[in-house]
């Protein structure tokens, strides 16, 4: 057991050090050799090639939280589906029916949200 963890520690150390080496070399080169020549085009932020207009801080509409909420429900449902899928072949039919009931309840929640007009962007 100690052998496995030792291997992991060595692996961890190499995984941290390995990407740092080229970064350190680039920093050292920039510091010691390349001259500082900042320019307008070099310092501006990239926005798919067009000139950026307007302030950087825009306000999110709070209506967005409803989408996040509905997404969260279905994401947790997906998480619950995964162990069921992994053990699917060994489970009896009743387990499948029980999970169908679970899925249908959540679909009913989606239908309710849709009918209430929550999914329409205001």
């Amino acid at each position, binding site marked *: 057991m100690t052998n496995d963890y030792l291997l992991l520690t060595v692996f961890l150390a190499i995984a941290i050090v390995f990407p740092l080496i080229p970064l350190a070399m680039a920093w050292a080169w920039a510091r010691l050799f390349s001259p500082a020549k900042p320019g307008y085009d070099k310092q501006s932020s990239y926005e798919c090639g067009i000139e950026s207009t307007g302030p950087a801080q825009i306000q999110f509409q709070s209506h967005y939280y409803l989408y996040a909420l509905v997404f969260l429900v279905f994401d947790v449902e997906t998480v619950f589906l995964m162990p069921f899928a992994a053990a699917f072949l060994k489970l009896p039919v009743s387990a499948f029916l029980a999970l169908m009931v679970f899925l249908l309840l959540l679909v*009913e929640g989606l239908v*309710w949200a849709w*009918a*209430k007009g929550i999914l329409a962007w205001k």
Partner: protein
Amino acid sequence: MLSALAPELILVITALVVLGLGVSTPGTRAAITAATILGGLVAAAAVLVLPVDGNFLHGMVVLDPLARIFKLVILALGLVAVVFASDSFPGIHLAESLALILFSTVGMMLLTGTEDLLMIFIALELTSIPLYVLAAFAKESRSSAEAGLKYFLIGSISAAFLLYGLSLIYGVTGSTSLGVISNVSGVADPLLIAGIVLTLAGFAFKVAAVPFQLWAPDVYEGAPTAAAALIASGSKVAGIFILAKLLTCGLGHWAGSAGWGQFLPGWAPVLALMAAASIVLGNVTALVQSNVKRLLAYSAIAHGGYLLLGLCSASQESLTAVLFYVVIYALTTAGAFGVVAIVEKQRGGSRLDDFDGLAKSSPVLALCLLVFLISLAGIPPLAGFFGKLYLFTSALANGNHLWLVILAVAMNAVSLYYYLIVLKHAFVLPARDDASPAAAPASRALVLALALSVLALGLVPNLLLTSLNKDQTTKVAILTHDK
């Protein structure tokens, strides 16, 4: 097994139908309320008519006559909350609020029908989460949002404590079924002690016992009154029932004793201390309240203390007394909140001043308020008196709990003051302006029915008491022969 869960299934289907009605065109206010009440009545019929008794899935679903009685009580309280909500909630989201009440009622019914630690937690969460949403339902009110947030945060933390405690108990005893846990004996090891304390902490939140009572005043005051009625009556009944079952049936071996000079370590002294603190704090703080809902919250804390006093005696007759008292307390509190809901609709607030002149404008309602508050104060011939009598006598008969009973009786006398203050505003002081009585016929009829039931249970306590006594033995027998 599905037929044992038929009442809960009927309620779930009703809730889904009501949600569907809410988003479709035939969903008028009356239709939604009628559908809910119809579903509740069918579920009640299912509870009465179902022939199956026994336990399923190693104690996860248990049906016996005592559980049936409590399922009926909880259904009745849920329907009471539905009627109050239909009269006082605004129309836009009525279907959702009724569906939430139904889901919470399903959770409470599952709580009364289980003997398994995992199912206890699931049912407790199913009870609480709709109540968190209901507490925050009044969207224009800041105090409702505050109530919902406080209830949710404190409730979730308590649920975490409860789950940790239950998992520790499972770890030490090796099973989640109360029947197996009750067979484990021997000295309590430190892990089990930690588990029991954490479990008590989680349940003390539900019952609003000191030192876990801080949520109750703000939630009772801020939540819409129908939701507060359900929180005060339904969740208390289910919480006390499952706490009684867990402690006396599952963990009975480690009860200890709280008698003066007979101290033995266990959960009974913990309950006794919590009871003493709740009784004192609840009654004394209620003296200075100016909002009736907040006053009822502090009174709920005090009554939680009386119930814990009954539980710490840990005997068969004190168990009967506790179950009797929690039922009549739930009926009384539901009725009191119903009166507050009607007055709120009439006057726009629930401060003591808003009750001025209630006797002139709605004499029947004022009389019902009198019945409820005098019953809470424990004055014969109302049901509250007999509940307290059985509680205190059973506490005295099982161990030297004289110190606790003296404290409880003294604080009970203190409580009479604040109940009478509300009645003074209702009966003696003249109305400040002439507000016409609010039209809420269903709520008024239900409040009258609740008042009559409190009066009936006071004049003939055997209506409830004989069935509780008889079924105590069945309850214990079922627990001991399951595996």
